[in-house]
């Protein structure tokens, strides 16, 4: 049967199990939008293509499925770029479709033409420009395969308008055949045996778990491993929820804004088992003094991560879940000893805490969100102080419940991501914890949430500053607050103007009632929490310093 390229695309999407697309129409994608008009695929119209990319990203992180976004050529495509880069840095499975000018106009600087495959070359796992309609079905199939297997990541498919508008006989492309793409999924026996021996010989082991644990769905295996070895577990920001934050072996986060006890444990451990983590500079601090006494074992599905930043003694390439299972077969239970006592003593001596003084504190707001939601909410964040306070004061016990821009640090990520999360989890409570700076980067998506009746809650920790930058200016630039003070709109009125609910809280006594009202609302709610202006995120390791040089 003859079909248009756009109809073939819709067929391929259905075959991939896609039930929702986040997008924004335009001239070069008109054939695709026309085909979507009759398709049994939900389309969420955002107000900016960046919002579409982040929403697809949030959807993917919450559901574990591939997130799909769609934009037109030129400016539509370039507006996706931040969202694609964000997904790339955090290894999120995403397929981004962009329209392109007709093939005959390619390369002539035509109206709304941008070389989006060229632009996204360094921020996609792979990308395609489909020049022949007969390649379309195969390309889409490959794109989903690449995006979702091995180390996940975004794949972009650029479709000229004559390809989506042209007609051809539709044929199933058959199985994916990519000679250069074969992710390694199981660890090598020899390496596993070496790792098991090193683990059993260690006296002071620490497990350092990253986003790979969440991506691979390896949280149960990780827990089993930690309990078998009685090894304390510290997670990266991306790893939050990969190990229960309320578990006695949990050390919370490490690194620049890690707990003091996690950083001390890493400095003193004799074995560091890195699981699906990539030794980011925010984690390691000064690399030459990172885990100085430790034998380092690194498990990762991406071989290029091993040895990239930190020399590794025992590398194991493979899917984290598989490798942990393989390792568990080779290990025996350990007994508690001096190391566990030392860790518990540090935890008692240096707890994460803040001073209450009658004024509304950001940490208090987050702790109360945790209490009101029973720790069961899906939380997204923007980027900045509020993000770190969320990591500290909301205890994440399940994977895929903390959704945040880790690698790229994208302000404006949290709110559109929350929309994607709410679409993926319609029956769950979703909060975007935001700063007053970050929320204004994609606040237009309030219209999207209202239109689609998505009851997303936005908790703005409003201190009238670009808080994290101000904190750095305070600590490292002699309190010269160069352009970090914000004059903000009235967020309550703004929420109401969009048709959402707006609530303002400045007294700690009003905190709980406001949150209780918010979670009951069936409309989006924007909560404007007027918090103490110059509160800092502590403890903190200054950039480039070793992990035991802590400001608190």
């Amino acid at each position, binding site marked *: 049967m003859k079909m248009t390229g756009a109809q073939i695309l819709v067929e391929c999407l259905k075959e991939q199990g896609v039930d929702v697309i986040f997008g924004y129409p335009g001239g070069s994608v008109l054939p695709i939008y026309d085909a979507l008009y009759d398709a049994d695929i939900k389309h969420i119209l955002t107000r900016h293509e960046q919002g579409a990319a982040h929403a697809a990203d949030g959807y993917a992180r919450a559901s574990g499925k591939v997130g799909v976004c769609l934009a037109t050529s030129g400016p539509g495509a370039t507006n996706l770029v931040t969202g694609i880069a964000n997904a790339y840095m955090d290894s999120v499975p995403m397929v981004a479709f962009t329209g392109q000018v007709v093939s005959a106009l390619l390369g002539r600087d035509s109206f709304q033409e941008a070389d989006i495959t060229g632009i996204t*070359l360094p921020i996609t796992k792979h990308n395609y420009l489909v020049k022949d309609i007969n390649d379309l079905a195969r390309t889409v199939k490959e794109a989903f395969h690449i995006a979702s297997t091995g180390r996940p990541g975004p794949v972009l498919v650029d479709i000229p308008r004559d390809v989506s508008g042209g007609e051809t006989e539709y044929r199933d492309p058959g199985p994916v055949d990519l000679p250069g793409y074969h992710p390694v999924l199981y660890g090598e026996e020899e390496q596993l045996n070496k790792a098991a021996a090193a683990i059993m010989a260690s006296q002071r082991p620490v497990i350092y778990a990253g986003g790979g644990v969440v991506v691979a769905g390896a949280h149960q295996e990780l827990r089993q491993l930690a309990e078998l070895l009685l090894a304390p577990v510290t997670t990266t920001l991306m790893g939050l929820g990969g190990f229960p934050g309320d578990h006695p072996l949990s050390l919370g986060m490490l690194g620049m804004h890690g707990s003091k006890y996690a950083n001390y444990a890493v400095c003193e451990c004799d074995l560091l088992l890195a699981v699906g983590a990539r030794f980011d500079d925010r984690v390691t601090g000064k690399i030459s003094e990172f885990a100085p006494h430790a034998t380092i074992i690194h498990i990762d599905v991406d071989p290029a991560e091993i*040895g990239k930043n930190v020399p590794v003694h025992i590398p194991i390439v493979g899917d984290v879940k598989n490798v942990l299972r393989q390792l568990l077969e080779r290990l025996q239970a350990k007994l508690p000893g001096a190391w566990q006592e030392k860790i518990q003593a540090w935890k008692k001596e240096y707890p994460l805490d803040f001073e209450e003084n009658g004024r509304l504190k950001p940490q208090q707001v987050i702790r109360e969100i945790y209490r009101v939601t029973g720790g069961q909410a899906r939380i997204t964040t923007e980027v900045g102080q509020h993000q770190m306070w969320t990591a500290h004061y909301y205890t994440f016990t399940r994977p895929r419940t903390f959704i945040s821009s880790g690698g790229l640090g994208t302000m404006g990520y949290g709110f559109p991501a929350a929309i994607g999360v709410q679409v993926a989890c319609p029956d769950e409570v979703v909060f975007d914890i935001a700063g007053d700076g970050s929320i204004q980067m994609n606040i237009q998506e309030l219209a999207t949430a209202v239109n689609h009746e998505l009851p997303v809650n936005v908790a703005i920790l409003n201190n009238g500053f670009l808080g994290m930058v101000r904190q750095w200016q305070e600590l490292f630039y002699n309190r010269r607050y160069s352009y970090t003070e914000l004059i903000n709109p009235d967020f309550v009125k703004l929420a109401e103007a969009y048709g959402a609910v707006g609530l303002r809280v400045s007294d700690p006594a009003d905190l709980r009632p406001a949150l209780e009202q918010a979670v009951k609302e069936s409309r989006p709610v924007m909560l404007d929490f007027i918090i103490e202006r110059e509160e800092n995120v502590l403890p903190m390791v200054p950039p480039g310093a070793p992990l035991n040089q802590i400001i608190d």
Partner: protein
Amino acid sequence: MKHILAVLVENNPGVLARVAGLFSRRGFNIDSLAVGRTDDPEISRMTIVVEGDARVLEQVTKQLHKLVDVIKISDITADQFVDRELVMIKVAAEPAQRGEIMQIADVFRARIVDLGLKTMILECTGNEGKINAFEESLRPYGIKELVRTGKVAMLRGQKFTTINNQREED
């Protein structure tokens, strides 16, 4: 140290940009890169000469492997291999000097591929040292233009760098 990598890639548009972009983005130092298709028109072979220590080489190899279009990478530096480069040099050659230049061409087993009123074009193949020496011997006459292909290399004997045949021992 310089390493010679033989890289088989799918002959797709943009593959050279992906490889070259990777090198510049990650701060790796490419010494030379020569590319052309193999006997299989769907597969191209790149010979990449890269400067760096073992750690750099490991990252280069791993990052290259991440590219979906890259099928196989072999570091042939430690093996027995034959390497060649082609150079074309346009040299100033008044009729009186042609004899001398032709003698130099003989010594280097170069060929004269064009003869103008005041210029000659010579082509020469060989390893890097030979090409450098050839260039130096022509320099006194006045080099008007020079183009080098970059190194191509192949393993000696019964070892192969192809997709189906792993590097078989002799």
